[in-house]
């Protein structure tokens, strides 16, 4: 018996026993019960029904060996949609894959019942449906992974924008509290936002606070020096503050030259220097 015949028989069995397979499948999924919730159960039933109604046609025209063909387009789209929804709802990859794999049990039961008279056909059909469901399951996981990756990329971008605020501390004094590791892309963003803020506020001095930078290696130091050089070209001086003892040691051991840059241990010290530079002074009001 050729694989085409097997696919046809398989498709026919699914079509004939659609309702029976559906109930068994949903029952099985519920027994695994990831979440019990009316909305989730509704959605699950809708997904199962849609997938099962598309399967027979695709199986007959597309065969079970390869789900890349045009005949499987609709099924693939449906699975992609299901995966995306699940990724957004926070399902695990195994939950999503199990959704497809759990169809096996009920499908096999239906096949055994329908083809019990023809053992050879039954064996072929079982093999065909196994390879088919494996492929569909893997496809689901792949799409799931992709949509999770997209979510991660979007969050990274949001984080990048969030983590580089330039704040005005005083007339003509800006502060740039850096948090997290400085890489080339972030340096670019930091530099741009600092320079734009300098133009906007006409600031004469900017304090770059690196308390939140976990490590300073030669690359990070180079990025810092670049930012300072660019600010200087615009006519603003920079002070680096928040250098932890350990980082001071690392800088010296690495031979990074920060001699041309004013450095202070804390933001408070740097602020005092900055105030003196712009001709202001903070005094305590006598109690």
């Amino acid at each position, binding site marked *: 018996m050729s694989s085409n015949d097997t696919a046809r028989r398989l498709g026919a069995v699914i079509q004939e026993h659609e309702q029976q397979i559906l109930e068994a499948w949903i029952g099985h999924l519920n027994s695994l019960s990831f979440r019990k919730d009316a909305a989730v159960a509704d959605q699950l039933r809708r997904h199962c029904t849609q997938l099962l109604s598309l399967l027979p046609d695709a199986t007959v025209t597309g065969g079970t060996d390869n789900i890349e063909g045009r005949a499987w387009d609709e099924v693939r789209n449906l699975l992609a949609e299901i995966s995306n929804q699940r990724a957004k709802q926070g399902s695990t990859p195994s939950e999503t894959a199990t959704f497809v794999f759990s169809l096996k049990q009920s499908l096999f039961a239906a096949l055994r019942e329908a083809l019990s008279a023809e053992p050879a056909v039954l064996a072929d059909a079982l093999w065909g449906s196994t390879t088919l469901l494996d492929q569909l399951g893997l496809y689901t996981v792949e799409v799931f992974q992709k949509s999770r990756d997209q979510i991660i990329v979007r969050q990274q971008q949001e984080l990048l924008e969030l983590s580089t605020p330039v704040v005005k501390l005083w007339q003509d004094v800006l502060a740039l509290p850096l948090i997290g590791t400085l890489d080339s892309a972030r340096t670019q963003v930091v530099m741009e936002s600092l320079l734009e803020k300098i*133009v906007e506020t006409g600031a004469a001095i900017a304090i770059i606070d690196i308390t939140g930078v976990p490590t300073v290696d030669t690359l990070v130091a180079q990025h810092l020096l670049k930012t300072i050089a*660019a600010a200087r070209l*615009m006519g603003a001086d920079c002070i680096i503050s928040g250098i932890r003892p350990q980082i001071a040691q690392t800088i010296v051991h690495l031979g990074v030259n920060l001699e041309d840059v004013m450095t202070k241990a804390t933001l408070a010290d740097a602020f005092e220097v900055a105030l003196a530079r712009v001709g202001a002074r903070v005094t305590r009001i006598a109690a």
Partner: protein
Amino acid sequence: MERIPILRIGDLLLVSIQVDMHDRLAMTLQDDLTERIVSDRAKGVLIDISSLDLVDSFIGRMISNTAAMARVLDAQTVLVGMQPAVAITLVELGLTLPGVKTALNVEKGMVMLGKR
């Protein structure tokens, strides 16, 4: 022949570069500026590049050289009005203009020269 105008404000000279620089123009500017520093007995020079969107290594070097020449004639040079994008480009090119003083705009540059 086109020239870049040099304006006198008190004992300062103001040069506003608004056109694309090329070799000839740069040479003429350096000639004119050194002449004027001597004849006007200027104490300071302001070079305004706020209308330049693009500064290449040639202009960068020209500005450095001009500042060095002015310093020899006992006039301080302040480069004013650099755009953020220009500053980033120059830093990426490795041209940080070490000998040149900078200010955000002409007003601040004049204050800086006045303090001297």
